[in-house]
């Protein structure tokens, strides 16, 4: 189906199903229960999961296929966001021009940066991309303030021009409020709540738009991985010198790959601006570039689904663990006797709330030490364990027949 082989089709379908049902899957705990804190099925976080999923998929096309480690991908994310934001300020609050334009701008910028950076390989390439991104960040935060809004960032305003006619989302809203990003009148923040028993599932428009984009991005990534082009990139990874000796110029392939990857980042940036109309310069900082590197490695470099999982895990920790506070801990352990309750709270205290970084750091170390291939390898091991058991069972039962 869709020009994919059976295995890839089933992977795509599984991902599609998971993404479609995410509002249900991510809310496993009933509302009001002590564990509801761990529910992640609210619009903002779900949007972040898929947007950072797109970012990581794009990054993995470059890093996973060619082995070129870019440390400046946040620049494309930020550029995409700024571009999308300006579209929503100048043209229309409708998100479509924003998304398209952000992808194009990121493509153009990545073409320029890639053209220069790809003259070098290995660590020298990494540092070149890092240098470009850091320059973009520093300038966006300071001298480019008229364009980027500087440290306070760029936002939609009441008096933005929005020149397109109002049925296309132009103009200001009637009630004196800043119009919200929308798709032909459907606001990105509009949700539909479905209470079932003790659960409440929130189906958010913005999330589903992001989800559709992510599935498209995922599908395209599979096609790239399986194409002759992808094969060429893998050859670059295994031995670029040999490729050059055979008379093949790998540069155009590399550059195309870099630009595709940059456009993915731009798309993610545009979606971020469309879901939440605010862009700050820190979106371009090296820590943001580092984050996508970590996401990809955490999930599994060069695997299709790994980067998405990695992105999800990091965002989950950032948003869920940072919100747990001592009060909640006391609630959770209130069934214990007082002394024990306090003891448990004291033990867990350093790892939650302001200590969520510590948990994240320990998780990084744990995963890379015990699962060298990232989360995907973890999944494979579990699968193998089940298969192994099944196989054992099969061999055990066969003799009886």
């Amino acid at each position: 189906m869709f020009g994919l082989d059976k295995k890839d089709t089933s992977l795509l379908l599984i991902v599609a199903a998971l993404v479609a049902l995410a509002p249900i899957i991510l809310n496993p705990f009933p509302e009001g229960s002590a564990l509801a804190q761990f529910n992640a099925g609210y619009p903002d976080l779900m949007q972040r999961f898929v947007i950072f999923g797109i970012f990581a998929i794009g990054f993995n096309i470059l890093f996973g296929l060619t082995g070129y480690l870019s440390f400046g991908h946040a620049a494309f994310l930020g550029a995409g966001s700024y571009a999308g934001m300006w579209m929503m300020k100048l043209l229309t609050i409708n998100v479509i021009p924003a998304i398209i334009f952000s992808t194009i701008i990121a493509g153009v910028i990545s073409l320029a940066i890639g053209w220069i950076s790809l003259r070098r390989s290995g660590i020298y390439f990494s540092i070149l991309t890092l240098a470009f991104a850091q320059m973009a960040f520093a300038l966006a935060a300071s001298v480019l303030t008229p364009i980027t809004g500087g440290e306070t960032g760029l936002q939609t305003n009441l008096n933005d021009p929005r020149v397109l006619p109002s049925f296309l989302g132009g103009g200001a809203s009637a009630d004196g409020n800043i119009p919200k990003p929308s798709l032909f009148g459907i606001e990105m923040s509009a949700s539909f709540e479905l209470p079932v028993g003790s659960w409440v599932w929130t189906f958010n428009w913005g999330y589903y738009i992001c989800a559709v984009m992510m599935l498209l991005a995922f599908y395209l990534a599979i096609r790239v991985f399986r194409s002759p082009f992808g094969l060429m990139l893998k050859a670059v990874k295994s031995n670029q010198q040999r490729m050059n000796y055979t008379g093949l110029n790998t540069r155009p392939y590399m550059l195309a790959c870099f630009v595709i990857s940059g456009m993915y980042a731009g798309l993610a940036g545009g979606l971020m601006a469309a879901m939440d109309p605010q862009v700050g310069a820190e979106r371009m900082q090296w820590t943001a570039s580092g984050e996508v590197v970590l996401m990809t490695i955490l999930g599994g470099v060069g695997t299709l689904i790994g980067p998405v999982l990695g992105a999800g895990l990091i965002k989950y920790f950032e948003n869920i663990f940072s919100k747990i506070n001592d009060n909640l801990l006391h609630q959770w352990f209130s069934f214990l006797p007082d002394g024990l309750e306090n003891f448990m709270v004291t033990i867990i205290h350093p790892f939650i709330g302001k200590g969520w970084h510590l948990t994240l750091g320990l998780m990084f170390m744990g995963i890379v030490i015990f699962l060298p291939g990232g989360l995907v390898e973890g999944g494979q091991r579990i699968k193998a364990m089940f298969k192994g058991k099944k196989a054992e069972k099969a061999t055990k039962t066969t003799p009886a027949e």
Partner: protein
Amino acid sequence: MSKSTLSRRGVLKSGAVAGAGLAVPTIFTGSSVSAFTNDPTGSSVTLGFNVPQTGPYADEGADELRAYELAVEHLNGGGDGGMMNTFSSKALEGAGILGKKVEFVTGDTQTKPDAARASARSMIEKDGAVMITGGSSSGVAVAVQALCQEAGIIFMAGLTHSNDTTGKDKKANGFRHFFNSYMSGAALAPILADRYGKDRKAYHLTADYNWGYTTEEAVRTSTEAMGWETVAAVKTPLAQTDFSSYVAPVLNSGADVLVLNHYGGNMVNSLTSAVQFGLRAAEANGKNFEIVVPLYSRLMARGAGKNVAGIFGSTNWHWSLENVGGAKYAGTNAFVQSFGQKYGFPPSQAAHTVYCQTLLYADAVQRAGSFNPCAVAEALEGYEFDGLGNGPTLYRAEDHQCFKDVLVVKGKENPENEFDLLEIVDVTPVEQVSYDASIFGGELGSCNPGA
């Protein structure tokens, strides 16, 4: 501590129990279920405390969080009541807000607008918070304020000093108790002119981002009005850690005052450099060389250690204010007492401003008789109050900025402990720091109740 938190959704759920099996869909936005976002219909109300818990301002965030917890305790009738006893409005009775028990959720802004908005959105979307407050930088405050405007809930700004928060980027749903760059400049200038003379040449080092720009401009304009001359203003990168190359040329530039428009770690490092270069002891143009830090905080003073001794700056509030300034600033001692009893050290200005903001919000709800953001905003606009430690204060309707006296402080020469680092030099009365609401541009827009 009660075990279950009745969130907006919890309530929604119980309301929909009848159709639970059938799963009757409720379109939440734009529906008639409630007139505004996160209407608390249960027996409790949830506030969102969004402060930096990681990153360089984590300690400031921790101090804010302490004050928030204290405020919640007082609102729910616990503790000694703190400033609720001295507050001029007596609407609050220690029985929660409108009879609903106050609960709270906390989040980490990381001092990054993106993370701050993510955290605030999760409070709104997941926890059903009806008000968001906090923050420790103007970038974060402006970002979260815009989000709250969009989502239709009230934002009570924490520590944010840029003119933009209630100037160019002001929003109908956002309110600020803290003072701003303009007020710092206006408060400092007359006192600087008085102490250091009117014939001074200033050299500005300015952090290269919005807050730095507004602060430099404020201090420049108001000191130049006093007769000072500005020799040069140099922008320093935000991520700079070693300021030596910026400080070194100062002494030979003809200037005799150095103004450090830096905050937090930037200020600690630039001041340390300046002192190391011997500027404190130097003489220029036949006068003692002086250093000025427009915005002081205790954490900065702590980070810079004895380098702050004798250096002038401004603050929003200081725990010794009532002892120095007299009964006009009633509330200060009550707050210091209850904070000090609970945590063992005096509160910082960040703690004070967020405590006030929480109380002011609760009081406004109580007076309005509704959690509806538009009703709350109306109750806060043009509201005059007293007894929250700053003397008589006005929440101006035009830009949602509080107007009150501004403190000019200097670093203590011989601090007795790590919290006793600043001393009050003078208090500039509110008339001298007021300005026309229109000078910074921006539009308030109309209040948004969401839904």
